[in-house]
């Protein structure tokens, strides 16, 4: 047990563990100290100074987020000195900030704005510094827009990019009045190592980092009667969408979401989960093929371990950071892109539509998906496979714009074809999910039996945040055609967050780790913590989303990708067989080595 420290906050005595900050000690007393640069997921910066408090016998006001408690401390969180200093600080931030709030994407959900209204900073006390600042807006990126005029230099984004993601695309440049958040040599985001993961967007308190939104374009497509607009929804959207529309975190809103999409006017509401199941079939076979080439044919060219390729932030990270390991990446497209390619081929054919009149929209928990859809190689249907990618947040905006009372919407089902899904697809939304789904299928392919885990729950690969999860699975009593795997221990590793991905891949590169199969998700917790998910985000919220995902999986009548009837049908009707000619044409891709600088 750690040592207890006694202190007094606003006249109330409290006893907390040594090392606790004043901020946390106050929150134990239900005293809320305002913060801006502070974020639970990140290291303490103590640079905005909004959380200053008064400490008796101290000349200065310490920042509550950075100051550890000390025995006998006397703290005042709302004294006259504190109020004046805090108001000054918020006013200073506003004076440097493009406070054109009604024109801002974050209007109404901006942390600075709410602090300003709380402090009644109505009469602008100080000079407006913005006109002399020559702020720039980087709009050249397909996923993220960076508007320096909205930036308050709290460095949450810098810490996110460096600590959580080890990407360091964003950093601090210049000093004093010229200090700003910038990129390598101030290049636009699309020219630097940015992976478009959007974790910075999730944590930016203002409108300085936002997703590029395609809400108007999607409305236009819906209104255009000559277009058939198809929408697909990713697994992690349904367990988070509710947060922006009146529900507590962890609420599964699949049925309401489908109803809402239909009411918005989409011509078909389909499920990315279908493509997730398809991905498992293709990727599972790819893994088996690679293992066979390595173990039976002893082909030295075959790249093992094989890594998943569903997370576009991760793919771009690998392209920049370990281009020499690109052969290890599965050639499978992500579910979104498989879906897109099939919508304008298989689906259009089945529905007797001219693919040029089909508009394919996807709802994703992700900002990197926007970049992925724009990749030149993602046009295998002959058209742009996915026309518009909306984040969970953008869908919430559309639902609100349409005046739908989301909480009261009835449930409805996805349309067919390409609307059926399984529990295996649902868990794509969390770290370890793709691994688990793949093993459920591969194990059965190889042995003809279910995986040896209760209720198909392969808990050893269910990773958590802040760790690299390794697991092994012994394969025995194989079917004759998979005899080469008899007695093989399948070595798997699961990581989420690019900082951990980097560790894993460095080990692979150095040869210090031997794996067969690697699952990486770029974002903390996997897609459920994606850069397109509702704001705010923190460990607690992400844990609730994760619970919801496994609950949804358990509730599905089908739990294994190969049981998906729509998947079975598409192989019968169209694709013929996994890794077949059609698959290679539509469902697989290649990667581009990129430079770090």
């Amino acid at each position, binding site marked *: 047990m750690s040592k207890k420290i006694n202190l007094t906050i606003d006249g109330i005595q409290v006893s907390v563990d040594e090392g606790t900050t004043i901020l946390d000690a106050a929150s134990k007393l239900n005293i809320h100290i305002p913060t801006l640069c502070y974020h639970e997921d990140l290291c303490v910066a103590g640079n905005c100074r909004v959380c200053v408090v008064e400490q008796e016998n101290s000349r200065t006001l310490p920042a509550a987020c950075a100051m550890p408690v000390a025995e006998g401390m006397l703290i005042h969180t709302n004294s006259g000195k504190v109020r004046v200093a805090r108001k000054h600080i918020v006013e*200073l931030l506003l*004076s440097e900030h493009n406070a054109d709030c009604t024109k801002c994407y974050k209007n109404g959900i901006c942390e600075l704005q709410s602090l300003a209204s709380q402090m009644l900073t109505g009469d602008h006390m100080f000079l407006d*510094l913005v006109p002399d600042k020559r702020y720039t807006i980087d709009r050249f990126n397909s996923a993220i827009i960076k508007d320096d005029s909205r930036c308050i230099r709290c460095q949450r984004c810098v810490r996110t990019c460096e600590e959580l993601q080890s990407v360091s695309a964003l950093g601090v440049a210049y000093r004093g009045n010229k200090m700003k958040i910038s990129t390598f040599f101030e290049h636009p985001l699309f020219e630097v190592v940015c992976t478009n993961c959007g974790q910075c967007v999730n944590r930016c308190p203002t409108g300085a980092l936002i997703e590029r939104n395609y809400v108007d374009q999607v409305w236009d497509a819906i209104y255009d009667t000559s277009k058939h607009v198809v929408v697909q929804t990713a697994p992690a959207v349904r367990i988070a969408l509710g947060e922006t529309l009146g529900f507590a975190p962890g609420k599964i809103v699949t049925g309401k979401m489908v109803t809402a999409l239909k009411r918005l006017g989409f011509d078909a509401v389909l499920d990315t989960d279908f493509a997730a199941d398809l991905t498992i079939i293709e990727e599972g076979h790819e893994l088996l093929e690679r293992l066979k080439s390595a173990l039976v044919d002893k082909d030295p060219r075959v790249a093992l371990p094989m890594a998943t390729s569903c997370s576009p932030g991760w793919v771009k990270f690998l392209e920049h950071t370990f281009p020499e390991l690109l052969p290890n990446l599965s050639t499978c497209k992500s579910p979104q892109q498989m879906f897109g390619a099939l919508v304008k081929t298989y689906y259009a054919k089945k529905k007797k539509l001219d693919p040029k009149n089909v508009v394919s929209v996807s709802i994703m928990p992700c900002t990197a998906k926007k970049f992925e859809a724009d990749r030149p190689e993602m046009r295998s249907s002959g058209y742009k496979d996915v026309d518009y990618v909306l984040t969970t947040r953008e869908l919430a905006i559309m639902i609100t714009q349409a005046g739908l009372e989301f909480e009261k919407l009835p449930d409805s089902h996805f349309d067919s074809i390409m609307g059926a899904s399984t529990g295996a697809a649902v868990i794509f939304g969390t770290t370890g999910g793709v691994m688990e789904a793949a093993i459920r299928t591969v194990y059965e392919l190889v042995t003809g039996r279910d995986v040896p885990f209760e209720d198909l729950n392969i808990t050893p690969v269910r990773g958590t945040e802040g760790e690299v999860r390794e697991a092994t699975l012994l394969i025995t009593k194989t079917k004759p055609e998979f005899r080469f795997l008899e007695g093989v221990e399948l070595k798997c590793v699961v990581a989420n967050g690019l900082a951990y991905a980097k560790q894993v891949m460095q080990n692979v590169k150095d040869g210090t780790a031997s794996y067969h199969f690697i699952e990486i998700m770029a974002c903390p917790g996997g897609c459920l913590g994606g850069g397109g998910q509702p704001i705010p985000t923190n460990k607690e919220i992400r844990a609730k989303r994760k619970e919801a995902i496994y609950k949804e999986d358990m509730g599905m009548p089908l739990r294994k990708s190969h049981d998906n009837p729509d998947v079975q049908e598409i192989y019968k009707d169209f694709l013929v067989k996994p890794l077949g000619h059609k698959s290679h044409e539509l469902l697989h891709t290649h990667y581009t080595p990129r430079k770090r600088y």
Partner: protein
Amino acid sequence: MSESKLKRVDLIFGEYSSVKFKVLADTLKRSNEDILEDLTESGLKGRGGAGFPTAIKWKYAAETPSKEKYVICNADEGEPGTFKDREILTRVPRKVFSGMAICGKVIGAQKGFIYLRGEYQFLMPELKRELEQYNEYMSKMGFDFPIEIVLGSGAYICGEESALFESMEGYRGEPRNKPPFPTTYGYMGKPTVINNVETFVNVVMIMRLGPIQFKLLGTSDSRGSKVFSVSGDTPIPGIYELELGMPLEKFVEEFGDGDTKAVQVGGAAGFCVPRKKFTETVIGFEGVPTGGSMMLFNSSRSMYNVLHNYLEFFEEESCGQCTPCRVGCQQLRKGIVAVKKGDKQSLYLDQLMKLAESMKISAKCGLGQSVANSFSSIVYNFREEMIY
């Protein structure tokens, strides 16, 4: 006027002892407790400006258990109007090394660094030659305490101790949150004593003369002497070692040109003392402290221009991470311009004074906290010059 009234002291720049590194050799033979006792007795306070008792700082570092500890000499002399560390390093570098080595022994550090201001690169060749002699001597003595020189890159903020560590570690020079303080978490996260150049020399002189003789100089709150950098409207600019605790009036009588209207004590981060307060002002920790900078202004100077110049300096030299300092400095400078131009009423100066007060208590480090010193003292004492 020409007759000298203030006592000149010759501790810092006094001649080396006849035998090379004699004080160092003698001190290294003493026990740590003994050395600390002498330092405590001497009442020595840090010469960088903040005036933290040196003995206490060393004691904290000595008491923190760690296999790795460091001694750093802060030679990032960047305060406008200060140029005494340059002189010390030029004339008596051996005393600096000796002071650092004594500190290394007391706290149990293995290595020392001199963080040298980027603009002082020209001192490097000579300093390196001196260091070679020092290292040679130390190996002969069988005492291992190597000293390395690290060159800064020109940022004022890197004179702030924790920003200095960041800079040395290869990061952007930004102050850290305190606590933890350097004596527990300093360079590379290890217990570190960081002292001003002059402080280390003072230590050597205390070891040489004993605390009693050291205490004969100065006052009860400000023991010893201090090297002053005298500049501005003075017929005799330069470096002078004087007793601490002197009345400013006497200083002006001696160094002024007969028309002194104000003295800026402690550089841009210090206080401006107007003529009417010369008699009541004492230079020392009990009065107006200084890291050494003494700038005299006569009646031909516009205090508005002086302040504007300081604020321009801070606006640019703030690291920019914390709000009060980054934006506050801009608002203060633009604010006085607006008042001068008539874009803002003169009452706006009162709002700026309040802002400066907020900066003083809420900024993350000493830089932002001390902008208010010059701002408030100049605006308060020369308000009419700000307006008309």
